[in-house]
């Protein structure tokens, strides 16, 4: 158990070092990178099974028990996130390797990709608020480098916004940690969970909102999301895909973790639901206004974040379970959507809907990959998005939150609208002249594997939902988490 909970972090860290050492030998880099990513996924699956069977697994890193040392804590939520993230990371990596472009061949790619994986894994597993900050920094620095590693003018410009906003969020995160330490004298989250309960409620509430907002910048909630659609679409496809799948979701994870463990509120938070509703609507309206596939999808990232925040805002087991399920679904589906967007660009040389036509007739395979993912994104049955949406709607009605549920249903209609825009724009119509080339079949296969996974998430909705419900119950009753972290790690 001890080893199992450490490996998801240890493997990518080791891979960073090894890929760097091998930086002159691309084939070796690839081998290390793929082996590490596949290994991490395998370990994550094993960890999920173990945690679901035996309960929270906590590792006292370096043998120093929390709160002296840093604890890696795997509960159902972390393990589930690790699995979803691992699948997305592997799919995108294979896609990147198959792309045969220069993007991945630039030697920076593999070490930095592994760095990103390490940051994400650490963020999911750490039981320490400051280590969470470090994890975010790892992840963000890696993402800065990934966006710019081709060093093109457009990338560089888009990255400015991204990096500057990221650094400001980091500075605010850091002062937040400072305030928390000042108020409690600890940065271990389990310890904080106990100590914050004794802190002046007004201060606790304010700190809770500060962290909500700080993570909200990363998660791209309204009105903090503006940076996202300006920076994501310009990056190379694998980079955008993994950003879309993971980065904002790590923000959401951090929100869920801190809001349940550290700053639990009494019942639903109307303000949070307001933010959720605005995020959904403003995000999807942004998507409608765009004319480029990746930009449309980028705005959808934002919009869909609203659903997750909504689930959390209900602050019930059902609501949080639905939010968790939705995160898992989004990690996979968003990744797939961007990969498909990349396929469209590969096949037609551009992602501008105005300039792409008739892909259905020229490359029906891409259409077959696009449809289930798009319908899932729009929440249509029988795909995973439907399961998530239905779970959210039922939880919302249970909690008596009619308005925001109505808004979410309306937003999903608009989502469908903008999906039809892509479909009618790129796939329908007489094939245009500028069809460039057929994407390599490995790219199609990588995308296809993730499509299958996303469909499987829908079909296996029941066991997943049960798992998410158990995870949500754990979150709302953190006693086990706290006990496992503080009461001896091994």
């Amino acid at each position: 158990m001890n080893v199992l909970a450490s490996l998801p972090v240890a493997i990518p860290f080791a891979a960073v070092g090894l890929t760097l050492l091998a930086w002159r030998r691309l084939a070796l880099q690839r081998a290390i990178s793929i082996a590490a990513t596949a290994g991490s996924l395998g370990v994550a699956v094993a960890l999920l099974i173990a945690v679901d069977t035996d309960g929270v697994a906590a590792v006292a890193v370096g043998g120093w028990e929390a709160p002296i040392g840093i604890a890696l804590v795997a509960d159902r939520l972390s393990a589930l996130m690790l699995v979803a993230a691992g699948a997305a990371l592997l799919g995108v990596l294979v896609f990147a390797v198959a792309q045969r472009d220069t993007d991945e061949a630039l030697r920076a790619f593999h070490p930095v990709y592994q760095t990103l994986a390490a940051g994400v894994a650490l963020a999911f597993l750490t039981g320490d608020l400051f280590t969470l900050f470090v994890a975010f920094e790892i992840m963000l620095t890696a993402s800065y480098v990934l966006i710019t590693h081709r060093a093109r003018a457009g990338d560089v410009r888009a990255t400015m916004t991204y990096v500057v906003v990221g650094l400001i969020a980091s500075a605010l995160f850091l002062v937040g940690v400072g305030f928390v330490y000042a108020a409690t004298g600890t940065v271990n989250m389990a310890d904080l969970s106990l100590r914050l309960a004794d802190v002046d409620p007004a201060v606790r509430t304010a700190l809770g909102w500060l962290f909500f907002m700080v993570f909200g910048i990363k998660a791209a909630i309204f009105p903090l999301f503006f940076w996202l659609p300006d920076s994501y679409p310009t990056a190379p496809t694998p980079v955008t895909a993994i950003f879309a799948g993971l980065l904002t979701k790590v923000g959401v994870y951090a929100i869920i973790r801190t809001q349940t463990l550290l700053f639990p509120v009494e019942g639903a938070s109307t303000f949070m639901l307001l933010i959720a509703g605005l995020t959904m609507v403003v995000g999807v309206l942004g998507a409608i206004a765009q004319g480029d596939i990746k930009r449309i999808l980028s705005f959808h990232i934002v919009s869909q974040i609203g659903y997750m925040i909504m689930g959390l805002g209900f602050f019930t087991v059902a609501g949080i379970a639905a939010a968790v399920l939705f995160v898992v679904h989004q990690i996979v589906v968003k990744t797939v959507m961007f990969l498909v967007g990349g396929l469209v660009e590969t096949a037609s040389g551009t992602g501008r809907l105005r300039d792409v036509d008739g892909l259905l007739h020229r490359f029906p395979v891409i259409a077959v990959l696009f449809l289930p993912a798009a319908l899932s994104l729009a929440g249509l049955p029988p795909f995973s998005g439907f399961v998530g949406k239905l779970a959210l709607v039922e939880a919302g009605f249970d909690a008596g939150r009619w308005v925001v549920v109505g808004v979410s249903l309306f937003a999903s209609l608009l989502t469908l609208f903008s999906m039809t825009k892509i479909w009618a724009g790129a796939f329908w119509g007489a094939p245009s002249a500028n069809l460039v080339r057929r994407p390599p079949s490995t790219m199609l296969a990588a995308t296809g594997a993730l499509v299958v996974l996303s469909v499987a998430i829908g079909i296996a909705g029941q066991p997943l939902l049960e798992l998410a419900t158990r995870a949500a119950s754990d979150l709302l009753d953190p006693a086990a988490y706290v006990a496992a972290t503080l009461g001896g790690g091994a």
Partner: protein
Amino acid sequence: MSITLAVTAGILFAAGTYLVLQRLLTRIVVGLGLMAHGANLILLGAGGEPGAPPIVGTADPATFGDPLPQALVLTAIVITFGVTAFLLALAYRSWALTAEDTVEDDIEDRRIAELRRREHP
């Protein structure tokens, strides 16, 4: 944390913010540097009153400053160092490509904003 420290950190943040709210990249980097300093002060101050260097055997442990925030600040300083170096390389590259030291507006956004202005003058 003394009032002085809190106010100093506040001033650093205010100055940093003022610099960050414009488009010259060099100024933004400087502004971010000021904010990082401010954050470090807050984190350090979270440890409480100043004390002796926490090196066992050099003083009475009771007089030690809180070592944990120090360790955290050190980590933060180094991270900032790395990221700043990267940001400078980015500025360098940006200058090499465009001969501009500014963060330009997003082109696609401007197009949609333009569209709106044209339709609703």
